[in-house]
């Protein structure tokens, strides 16, 4: 009887020990699985954050450029300088799902393109990439993310090309041709306001039509100055430019004088 009791006790001890070891093994495996899944989740979250931050700060940059363009008319004779002076920057920092992040973007005019240029910031389509004839921007973007107590981090520096769909080339050529035409018309009859007005009225409809064909509205005027000089001006407006953060008007002005 005593032997049977000892045997039963030993069997129970062995059985329980095996159960504990098996449980610990399964527990350890599940712990590793949970840890891997958690790391994988942090990585996927960091990638999602990176995409949304790149798009978000770039959109802020585009909004700043749009604001500048709509508030500041360009001058025909200094269009390259006007576009070259454009710069915008934006940043974002904070914490999301235990991931601390910082993102910054700075943009300025891109070198003129010979062909359309694609960009992998597709979340900003159709404003990602370069478009010939439009205002193209070159953006330097950097992002740093740290999650999981420093165990999972992501750091990137990228260069993107963005576009604001104003018709720079069209505005430049329209402005130059309109000023040339008005200058030529007004110079035919100096010091004769009646003939000058007739020449101006004759030239204007064609210029308005040319501008309308390129989706611009054109207004122009003229006035007599001292010593028979004549001053004339042209205003071109590209209305309802469909920008990344809404539509806006872009204005280009030009002046000329006939001595």
């Amino acid at each position, binding site marked *: 009887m005593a032997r049977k009791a000892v045997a039963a006790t030993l069997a129970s*001890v062995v059985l329980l020990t095996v159960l504990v070891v098996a449980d610990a093994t399964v527990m350890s495996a599940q712990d590793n699985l949970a840890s891997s899944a958690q790391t994988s989740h942090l990585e996927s979250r960091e990638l999602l954050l990176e995409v*949304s931050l790149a798009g978000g700060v770039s959109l802020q940059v585009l909004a700043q450029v749009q604001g500048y363009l709509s508030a500041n008319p360009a001058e025909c004779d200094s269009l390259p300088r006007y576009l070259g002076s454009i710069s915008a920057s934006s940043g974002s920092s904070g914490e999301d799902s235990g991931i601390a992040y910082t993102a910054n973007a700075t943009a300025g005019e891109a070198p003129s393109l010979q062909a359309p240029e694609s960009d992998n910031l597709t979340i900003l389509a159709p404003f990602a990439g370069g478009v010939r004839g439009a205002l193209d921007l070159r953006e330097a973007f950097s992002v740093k993310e740290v999650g999981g107590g420093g165990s999972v981090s992501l750091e990137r520096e990228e260069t993107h090309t963005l576009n604001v769909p104003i018709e720079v080339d069209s505005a430049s050529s329209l402005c130059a041709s309109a000023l040339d035409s008005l200058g030529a018309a007004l110079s035919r009859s100096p010091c004769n306001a009646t003939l000058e007005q007739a020449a101006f009225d004759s030239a204007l409809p064609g210029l308005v039509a040319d501008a309308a064909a390129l989706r611009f509205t054109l207004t122009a005027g003229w006035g007599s100055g001292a010593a028979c000089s004549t001053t004339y001006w042209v205003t071109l407006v590209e209305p309802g430019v469909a920008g990344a953060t809404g539509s806006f008007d872009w204005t280009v002005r030009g002046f000329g004088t006939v001595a």
Partner: protein
Amino acid sequence: MQLIDIAVGSGYAALCLSLIVLMNPVAPREAAVEAGAQSVLDSAISSYLQHVGLPFLATSSDAAICASAAGASNATLGFDVIVQGEGCGSVVAPSSPLASSSLTLDLPSRPVVIEAWLARR
């Protein structure tokens, strides 16, 4: 002597059973399943963002945005887009989803929050 044997045996059994209860593998397994589901949701939010684009979320009407969220949802995956604190009334998240995730976008004109969840089958 017999009493001591019984006490030691019972004590060991109690210890082992306690360890088995403490080392419950169900908790980490559930954590792994939840983390996996969160990754699926993050991937789904990323796909939705790539599909509609940020300019759309920054400029479109509430109705258009809600239509896009409804279009991206299916039987198990749900989306809601909250624009300036207003969500899509037609989309109702389940009271006890398998997992849920959200992403806040600081867009120039308005804050937008994308919420996604996986419903239990």
